[in-house]
């Protein structure tokens, strides 16, 4: 692992954490009406996965999508703008927290429907394959989503067509209040790969280096035409399902145990111990990112509300694609 790469991933992780912390603040102060599903505790996954990706490599994301969005390089101000429902937000305020897409960074969109984005990723990968592109697609989803029919159909379809798509299951132990042990009867979700004859592997999702390394393996796999990969990232949802969750379904001890495996702290320790990064540089990075986030939030608050007339805009593209129909030669 190159030092610079690790530092860059660390920076992204911190950025995500700061973004989510500010999002919680906004929710607390009732400045966003969006249910905020934070990515806190899972930052290593988005950071480690997206570190490999260019803007031409595509992702589909989830209701817990801020981290993916940021790791793909999204503009924080436009993200906050969307959380606040402003016209300068990613969706002009129409989508909110659960519905941010950013084609410019290859983000095909977050999704409020659990499992809803997985088939989209397969279609995007099919499109890349038909175009003979070397790019690939990553589909992020949770442990809970692997119980959706769309997960099953999508992995099977990607398998038989050997599509360049990497399925990243973020197993954070919970789907709202339901522990994964109550909804899935196997030890490792990656074993579900067996059902489709594709490569599956479980990874320590709180260790950004493991994430990065296994993602590298997966990228090589899909790029060599061997078909899709299912990576299960083992992690933990540190906060409630959304801001406001009473969390009556788990103990504080359980949460505390996982806090000791905090991915940012883990990475920080590694940077200090294995790469000799000084605590000054680390706190400089942290401060920079905090500032970046808070500045973005401040600027977003200055954005205006959407125009009321905008309510009925943006549903249809009224132009037709320009195709010159060619007669058939008999």
């Amino acid at each position: 692992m190159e030092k610079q790469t690790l530092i860059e991933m660390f920076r992204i992780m911190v950025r995500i954490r700061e973004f989510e912390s500010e999002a919680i603040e906004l929710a607390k102060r009732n400045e966003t009406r969006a249910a905020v599903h934070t990515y806190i505790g899972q930052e290593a996954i988005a950071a480690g996965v997206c570190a490999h990706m260019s803007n031409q490599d595509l992702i589909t994301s989830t209701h817990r999508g801020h981290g993916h969005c940021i790791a793909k390089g999204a503009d924080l101000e436009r993200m906050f703008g969307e959380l606040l429902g402003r016209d300068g937000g990613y969706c002009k305020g129409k989508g909110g927290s659960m519905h941010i897409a950013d084609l410019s960074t290859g983000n095909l969109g977050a999704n409020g429907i659990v499992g809803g984005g997985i088939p989209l990723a397969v279609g995007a990968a099919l499109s890349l394959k038909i175009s003979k592109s070397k790019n690939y697609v990553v589909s992020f989803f949770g442990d809970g989503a692997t119980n959706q029919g769309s997960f099953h159909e999508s992995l099977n379809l990607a398998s038989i067509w050997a599509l360049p798509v990497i399925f990243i299951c973020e197993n954070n132990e919970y789907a709202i209040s339901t522990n994964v042990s109550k909804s899935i009867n196997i030890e490792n979700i990656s074993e579900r790969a067996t059902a489709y004859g594709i490569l599956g592997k479980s990874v320590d999702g709180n260790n950004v280096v493991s994430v990065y390394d296994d993602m590298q393996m997966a990228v090589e796999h899909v790029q060599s035409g061997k078909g899709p990969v299912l990576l299960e990232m083992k992690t933990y949802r540190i906060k409630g399902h959304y801001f406001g969750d009473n969390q009556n379904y788990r103990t504080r001890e359980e949460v505390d145990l996982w806090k000791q495996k905090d991915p940012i702290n883990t990475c920080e320790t590694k940077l200090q111990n294995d790469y000799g990064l000084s605590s000054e540089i680390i706190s400089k990075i942290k401060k920079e990112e905090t500032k970046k986030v808070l500045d973005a939030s401040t600027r977003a608050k200055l954005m205006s509300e959407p125009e009321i007339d905008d309510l009925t805009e943006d549903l249809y593209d009224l132009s037709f694609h320009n195709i010159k129909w060619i007669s058939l030669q008999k």
Partner: protein
Amino acid sequence: MREAINEALHIAFNSDENIFMIGEDIATYGGQLRCSYGLVERFGPERVRDTPISEMAIVGAGVGAAIAGKRPIVELSYIDFLGSCFDQVLNQAAKIRYMYGGYVNVPLVIRTQCGAGLGNAAQHSQSLEAILAHIPGIRVVIPSNAYDAKGLLLHAIRDNNPVVFIEHKALYKKKCHVPEDPYEIDYTSDIKRKGDDVTIITYSAMVDRSLQAAEQLNSEFGIDAEVIDVRVLEPLDLQPLIGSAQKTGRVVIVHEACKKGGFGGELAAQIQEHVFDRLKGPILRVAAPDVPVPFADNLERQYVPDISKIIEAVTEVMNFHRSEV
């Protein structure tokens, strides 16, 4: 309304052992809809079951258990997730009895949540009752207040046919007097306000708004509106609607679902078929515009029909004068 629904569920579980409930996070968590609290503690995990996120299997399991003789209640946390279980509603629950010649019953209740207004955006705010009402074989019940919800839910649970019971999320916190004892409400439309000048036909969260509009119409314009809460789209209790339209000659239909293809079209079509002669003006519809539900506060407020739009439609139909042909 939340407490009323919870009470109805407790009564039902307490009265018939064949009643049980499945859904996501309904046990310890008390449901995403927060309506099922206390059930698992009282009736145990055998009859109150958290499920994985598998809507097709959940609804399908409800249908299968119903066929096999139980009386399951399924909680579908948002009506938007009909997308994820639609086959079991459209092609199984609704068709089984007819397709099998009347020999197989499906006594299933699917409780679900609809509606906009709380910033949940396009995929968690829909009003899809018109889609269900177009599927023969499904009862569609959509209460507007706590009292009605309790009585209608108990009635629905005794129904031997599949019922989709639709609770508007904006109504959960609304309270009204609800007797503690069990009672039922038949599948009937309900005149919520008497009036002679114009008929407002509505249901779900729009009932309150229509009643407020009626008060304002009365005090500001001297217009006396009758407000009818349809409450049940299938079977539709048409008589009170027709009776009222006959009396007033002026009809406004109000619902939150987007207008095009909404249930308002059906109501308008039926009413003019029956009382064409008595109509003094066109039947007008107040409904959401034909776009998905937007997130931003101001857009969503504009999206959901409000009192001013109801008043506008009523005054328009009151001012309508037949031009000489």
